């Protein structure tokens, strides 16, 4: 049953997406309504279902038309109204899903793009595929801390490691470097800023990235690391930071 379940996940999504197209196609009147007529507004209001009714209709549709006895979908809770549509939480064989539907349960949306979240995420991206945080700069002895997390067995870590070591050396008077190669140190920082993968770089708790910068190339990656550190040291040492001023301005 577990195999069916796994294969079913994309199947449900795809079939539902196709079904939406089919519903829209078979009901052209939905697209040709005159705008703003009183009669249409009254009809729309009559078609509005309660959250429970809409949820039950959707589940019935999924069970009868999509799953067809291979598995059973069931509501996890009474659907809720969110941003003018109904949010329907259901499960199939222990897997949880969130779909959305119109209030008349005629349209079902298996996937939602959260534009606000996307915009927020975009705003937090900075140079070199680093993410920026709103956290305070983490310091040791009054200097920003730069963390590296990696493992000797990991080729991407081996690529990144000499670059960050070399850049950190240029700032030896301005930062504290925590060089965590195959180490269990600073796991609180690692857990907070990494996805759990290595290599991971955390620069003063303000900028962080999981994965190496191999796509940038060694030269550009070194410049990116330098610029991010300069941002935290107040452009010190100035001779080092002046060389990457253009990048610093993009942060």
């Amino acid at each position, binding site marked *: 049953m577990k195999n069916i*379940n796994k294969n079913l996940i994309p199947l449900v999504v795809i079939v539902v997406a196709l079904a939406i197209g089919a519903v829209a196609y078979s009901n052209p009147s939905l697209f040709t309504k005159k705008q703003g007529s009183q009669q249409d507004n009254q009809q729309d209001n009559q078609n509005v279902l309660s959250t429970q009714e809409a949820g039950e209709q959707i589940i019935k549709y999924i069970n009868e038309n999509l799953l067809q006895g291979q598995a059973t979908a069931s509501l996890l809770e009474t659907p809720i109204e969110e941003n003018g549509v109904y949010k329907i939480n259901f499960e199939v064989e222990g*897997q*949880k899903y969130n779909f959305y539907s119109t209030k008349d349960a005629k349209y079902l949306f298996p996937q939602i793009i959260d534009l606000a979240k996307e915009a927020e995420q975009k705003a937090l991206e900075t140079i070199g595929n680093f993410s920026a945080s709103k956290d305070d700069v983490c310091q040791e002895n009054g200097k920003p801390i730069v963390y590296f997390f990696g493992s000797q067995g990991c080729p991407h870590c081996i690529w990144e490691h000499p670059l960050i070591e070399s850049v950190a050396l240029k700032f030896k008077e301005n930062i504290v470097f925590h060089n965590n190669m*195959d180490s269990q140190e600073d796991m609180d920082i690692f857990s907070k800023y990494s996805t759990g*993968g290595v290599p991971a770089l955390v620069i003063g708790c303000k900028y962080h990235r999981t994965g190496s910068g191999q796509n940038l190339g060694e030269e550009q990656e070194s410049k990116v690391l330098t610029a991010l550190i300069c941002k935290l040291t107040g452009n010190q040492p100035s001779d080092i930071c002046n060389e990457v001023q253009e990048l610093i301005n993009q942060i």
Partner: protein
Amino acid sequence: MIKFYSSPNCPYCFTLKMFLKEHGIQFEDIDIAKNKQAVKEVEEKTGKYEVPVLDIDGQIIEGFDREEICKLLNIKD
């Protein structure tokens, strides 16, 4: 099919590997330190250069995203 891309002696990979074993999840253990093709596969699948990476029936999880892994593998953690 679950593919687990990792590298030896990587404490971060080890934690995830133990988590999968504890929950009885069977997986193909791929050592990217020895397998250049695997390195390419990870890069193509994620666009990133990191380990560990899990491929669960084509769905890619970078790092140890416990919540997502539990959801996809139906683990009650």
